[in-house]
């Protein structure tokens, strides 16, 4: 009975040349203005009845001027942000091999659990008797983290990885002060391959940063550390596995050298996903290490946070952990919320990192993830992450250049741009061409110790079929480079919602907020 009016049901002639549209939209790819261009000052998407008349007690400081922010009705808001979301690439879109960031699958049961009223709708300063389950989450998470790292204590409150670094380095600073060595012990050794947050953290609390050159194989030489370490050494900040994707095989000797000099070993735990259940930082001589719950333990990256950066501490640093911390007593769970309370329990807390108790929403998700995987699943996840990275290495080693040779890597594999030399294609061009092929690019130009770095971290979340297609795609791109098809790269991306962005222009005359267009003034007659 359908289609009696001659409605065509075959596509007809295929035309490859695209027509410009009236709207600028391209079907599902919609142009979307700013809310300030579509909202109106007198519109709101919430309905509240005006309060009954009352005598205001604002002390004469009522706002006199309009805020100047428009509102949207609910359907307009929904459409606006859905359209914006469609201009984003996420883990759920496709392979997201952003090295050092561990873009693994985010299980949705964790989102569901974090939104249980008993977790999401609980205030941090309710009576402790009414939040025993929340404190149990913190206590249980701490237990898992200590068990997996072989460390003695956990400071849960840091808000993200860099904040965890700050916490760990503050504990080290406090320990040095307690020994009366503050005046002399102020140098922190940081390998050239380190994340930028490491030297930034050390400098923030007035340590002097001394660079440690990386040896030819991409790792740190304990002999160099021993030479650089001395009575002025506060600590070394070492990422292990390091940012070249390699396990620091001399880590124990490095720890020994630092300890022999009287310093502490801070480990950047950004790459913990490679070694969970395989080895324990505590057994390697680590004194402090932050753990990015949003990397290793799968709390969503959320477009740039929120993260969570709990710090595990060795026996030597444990007493200096900041407040708050949870204690389990016969009466239940308690919170030590200020340094005086901490002292009552024999601690020397160095202070406070943040208001309240840290990233509870992330603790819940991370613990749910850990319970799901269990000890066996966590180890399997690390093994699969390492296996996947090596599979990519094996699949590309003949075409792309490995700066430290074709040897096993950990959970990420580092290429440099030697293979692109004289091709007219840069690392950035190659990355942008990957966008056209439907992939998020790898981390580029980091670490700084190799030229034109491409750091690929597939994570354990990829199937073999997904990896095979990824490898085939990168091989096709590499052959294309060899054939001199430079336009495929230098003009890329061709198929993204926008063409390549002009970052220089943005920085030269920064426009950091919306300004309404100047009103048109009509000329007087």
């Amino acid at each position, binding site marked *: 009975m359908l289609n009696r009016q001659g409605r065509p049901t075959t596509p007809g002639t295929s035309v490859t040349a695209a027509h410009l549209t009236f709207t600028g939209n391209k079907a599902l790819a919609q142009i979307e203005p700013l*809310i300030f261009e579509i909202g109106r000052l007198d519109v*709101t*998407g*919430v309905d509240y009845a005006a309060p009954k008349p*009352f005598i205001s007690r*604002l002390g*004469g400081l009522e706002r*006199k001027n309009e805020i100047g922010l428009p*509102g949207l009705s609910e359907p307009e*808001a929904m459409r606006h*942000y*859905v359209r914006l979301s469609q*201009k*984003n*690439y996420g883990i759920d879109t496709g392979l997201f091999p952003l090295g050092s960031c561990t873009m693994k699958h985010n299980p949705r049961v964790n989102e569901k659990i974090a939104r*249980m009223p008993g977790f999401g709708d*609980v*205030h941090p300063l309710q009576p402790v008797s009414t*939040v*025993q389950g929340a404190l*149990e989450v913190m206590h249980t998470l701490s237990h898992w983290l200590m068990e997996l790292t072989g460390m003695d204590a956990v400071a849960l409150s840091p808000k993200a*990885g860099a*904040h965890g670094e700050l916490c760990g380095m503050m504990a080290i*600073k406090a320990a040095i002060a307690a020994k009366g060595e503050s005046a002399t012990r102020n140098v922190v050794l940081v390998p050239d391959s380190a*994340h930028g947050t490491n*030297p930034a953290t050390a400098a*923030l609390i007035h340590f002097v*940063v001394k660079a440690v050159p990386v040896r030819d194989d991409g790792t740190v030489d304990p002999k160099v550390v021993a030479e650089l370490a001395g009575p002025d050494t506060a600590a070394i900040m070492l990422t292990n596995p390091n940012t070249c994707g390699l396990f620091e095989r001399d880590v124990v000797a490095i720890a020994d050298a630092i300890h022999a000099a009287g310093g502490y070993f801070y480990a950047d735990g950004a790459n913990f996903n490679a070694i969970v*259940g*395989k*080895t324990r930082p505590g*057994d390697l001589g680590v004194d402090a290490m932050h753990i990015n719950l949003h990397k290793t333990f799968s709390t969503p990256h*959320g*477009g740039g*946070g929120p993260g969570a950066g709990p710090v595990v501490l060795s026996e030597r640093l444990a007493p200096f952990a*900041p407040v708050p911390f949870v204690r389990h007593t016969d009466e239940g769970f308690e919170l030590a919320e*200020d340094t*005086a309370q901490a002292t009552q329990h024999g601690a020397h807390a160095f202070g406070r*990192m943040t208001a*309240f108790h840290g990233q509870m*929403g992330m603790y819940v998700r991370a613990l749910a993830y850990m*319970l799901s995987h269990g000890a*066996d699943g966590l180890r399997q996840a690390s093994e*699969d992450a*390492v*296996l996947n990275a090596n599979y990519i290495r094996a*699949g590309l080693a003949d075409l792309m250049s490995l700066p430290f040779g074709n040897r096993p890597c950990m959970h990420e594999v580092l290429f440099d741009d030697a293979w692109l030399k004289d091709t007219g294609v840069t690392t950035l061009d190659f990355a942008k061409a990957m*966008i056209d092929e439907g992939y998020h690019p790898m981390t580029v130009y980091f670490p700084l110790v190799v030229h034109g770095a491409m750091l690929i971290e597939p994570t354990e979340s990829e199937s*073999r079929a997904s990896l095979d297609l990824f490898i085939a795609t990168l091989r096709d791109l590499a052959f294309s480079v060899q054939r001199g098809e430079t336009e495929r790269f230098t003009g890329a*991306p061709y198929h993204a919602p*926008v*063409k*390549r*962005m*002009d*970052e220089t222009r*943005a*920085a030269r005359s920064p426009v*950091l*907020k919306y300004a309404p267009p100047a009103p048109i003034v009509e000329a007087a007659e």
Partner: protein
Amino acid sequence: MRYLPLTQEDRSGMLAKIGVDHIDALFADIPADKLLSSLPKLPLHKGEIEVERVMGRMAARNVSASSVPFFVGAGAYKHHVPATVDHLIQRSEFLTSYTPYQPEIAQGTLQYLFEFQTQVAALTGMDVANASMYDGSTGCGEAVLMAHRVTKRTKAVLSGGLHPHYAGVVQTLSEMAQAEVVALAPDLLASEDLLSHIDETVSCVVVQTPDFFGNIRNLRAIADKCHAHGALLIAVFTEVMSLGLLTPPGEMGADIVVGEGQSIGNALNFGGPYVGLFATKSAYVRQMPGRLCGETMDAEGTRGYVLTLSTREQHIRRDKATSNICTNSGLCSLAFTIHMSLLGQTGLKRVAEINHANAVAMANLLAGVSGVSVLNTSFFNEFTVRVPGNAAHLVEQMAARGVMAGVPVSRLLPDAGLDDVLLVASTEVNTDEDRAAFVEALKEVL
């Protein structure tokens, strides 16, 4: 295991392709005696149904804010968040993306950050805002360090009305960064003499309004004196909704405005994750911490957005960076932006009025209870009351009667001699029935 796509067959096939016969060959760089021979002493994997059960049991041991008459504030507030917000932030493209390093496939994130920055600048009355800090307290610490960079001085004066946790964060950070802090005594009635502490040695003065005790403060005289002596005024808020009704700090001369954005878009979450709002004057933008999103064009002249001025940041400047911050509060700032877009200035003003009206109604009721006195002359949605006896004890007793009465000041200021002072917050979620239940329970325990 449901999160791991590889089968045993995949694994052995892949190992063969790599050219090794056992997975541990890939871990050969780990010293042999440090490679774990057995699994960690932790439970084995669980199905989703079991995980929900275990976590659900823990959740059930907490009393949720919506389940009782709820008046707890002190820096985190129970507000109604439209369902649209939580739906949108769970869209995969937002939830599972990361810092927009590749702007061509992150315009969604970048555009909402640009909207966020515009909203925060407008609310605070400042020129520019960044793309978020972890929360208000850490943003406050960063603001102090920024003031030191701008003024090339190292002494911060903290008002006694500053949230004690914020003061704690500033003190910890300052001590570690070898900077001086003068923290004034807890200032219950906003009667401190801040002006006398401002001189040529001071880098910045940190004042909160509404302050920790709920008092609304006029910052103009403090700003004037700061500027006369080359110091900066850092204005702090813990309740962003107050900016719907109150004169913004930017209009009172603040140089840096920093605060907690949780109230718009974000759930209580037992204290985090929240979202730090950070705004300043254009002149200081290159000393700001954190990410900044800026407008630009693509190769064809189409408007778009990128992260910009990153030469301030750790991944470029390493030990010369303005801050070590990297991951911040992306998704919480999205929640803020969406909720703020739904409110608009009209809705924000309305909901702020309701907050104030409910707090006034609560204060009036409590003022009528024998033995209880309201201490504030001005407030927005939170105020202090003096109660007969110990406020912490009273809060516990009222909790046992199913009313969350507020925060005993002694919990955050144990040595201030304010054991009989209770902070009471009231927002748009409170009803006449909630207030009646509060008064009834209070009378029972007094």
